[in-house]
């Protein structure tokens, strides 16, 4: 296969959002199921997919709700610091 540009085999950075990961996972699974890629590409897709699953699960496991208050369009502070 000539294409390496579609994400296959690229690293899956830690800061991808859950939405991006889930979207890419769906794409990878579809490619594996429908396109019947050759073995090398199938392995690359599998590896990337497993990476997304693992990162997403980590995100879910260690998440703690972060709440901030918008003071202006660009200014934030942790929510709850203000007195009533």
């Amino acid at each position, binding site marked *: 296969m000539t294409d390496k540009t579609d994400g296959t085999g690229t690293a899956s950075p830690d800061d991808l*959002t859950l939405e991006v990961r889930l979207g890419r996972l769906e794409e990878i699974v579809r490619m*594996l*199921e429908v396109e019947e890629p050759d073995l090398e590409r*199938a392995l690359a897709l*599998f590896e990337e997919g497993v990476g997304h*699953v693992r990162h997403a699960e980590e995100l879910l496991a260690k998440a703690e709700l972060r709440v901030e208050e*918008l003071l202006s369009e660009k200014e934030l502070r942790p929510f709850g610091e203000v007195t009533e």
Partner: protein
Amino acid sequence: MSETRNLDLFPPGGVPENGEDTGRGDPTAESAQLEVWTPSQLNRALRLMLESSFGSIWVTGEVTNFKRARSGHCYFTLRDDEAQVRCVMFRADAAALPTDPDEGMTVRALGSVTVYEARGDCQLVVRTLEGEGAEGLWRLAFEKLRARLESEGLLAHERKRAIPEFPSCVGVATSPTGAAIRDILSVIGRRAPWVRVIVSATRVQGEGAALEVAEAIRSLGASGLVDVVIAARGGGSVEDLWAFNEEPVARAIVECAVPVISAVGHEVDVTIADLVADLRAPTPSAGAEAAVPDSEAITAILDAAAARLARGLRGAVRGRRASLEGQRGRLARALPSLVTTRRDALRALSERKLRAVQRTLEARRARLRVAAGTMTALSPLATLHRGYAVPLGTGGRVLRRMGDFPDGLEFSLRVVDGHVECRASGSASIDEAGA
């Protein structure tokens, strides 16, 4: 003001209770005794009497000539089939009106009766004006705004944007201290704790609340940080929720850069915010649930994806193996015939070669025969056959010249069929040419 105090205000002799008696007496005499009033005195007396005797009352009737003055005060007339009364609503109270009543609309007015002293007009100072039936005037305001927004196409279903399935960041426009924000944070914390929440604090009721709510929504949309906005407020009366029925909030929702979920705590009625929002949730909690996915649902998705990945890879391997098996099968089938073919070819080849070798041998043999003939011709035996003999000295040495034959030499003469013993007895040379 007490009753006694009021009665003291009436001029002496002017007590109404005496009116009937005085009327029967001598009018002239009586009249001469009466005090003379000025209009001011009269109107003031009337005003005080009316104000003290009525207190707050509800008056119902049709509204006509409703006018909102530049001062903010509102003037109108309430009437029924036979009578009418002038009404005024001062600015502070008029500001709370959701909308101006339509001409001829039946309303209920809560107010107190008084006299406008300058004109001597009796008038009702209205503090609360309601349309007939509960929420009548609110309903009217609602319908007016709804019709306007609808005519602009802002309520169209096609306008609704999809709420993102997996938002990273949720904006909440609500009171920072109300039940709504507590409910929302609790739901998001439970379902999707990885989601970042940004609260834009605003008052949600009271004068000017609509503008604040609108600004909160607007600034969240403009921040570029949030994927979806929840505009929320806990439950309350129609008046409490009114900010969410006002145009600034509706416009802010429509113009917001990201989808907006309205989450105003009221199950029954719909607010304008609900109508223009991309999604209407019946409560703040429901709004939060609509905004974020459940972590359990995501775990299920991830599990399914992992299984499908593994299956996909196995499929790819199996596909490879199948094609390998296929190749091997073809090879296996191809091999025997290949061998046979080769064997035949080999056999054909070897026969041909054999023949060639035989031919070569034959040729060599023929050449050998010729050579043998030639050799026979050259053989000394043949010479002996022709009658020549060879003298052999001791040791079998060939004796070629006269010098080899001293007189008396005994030697052997080889002839064709044996040896002849001889003795040399004299020799004579012959000339070379004759030899």
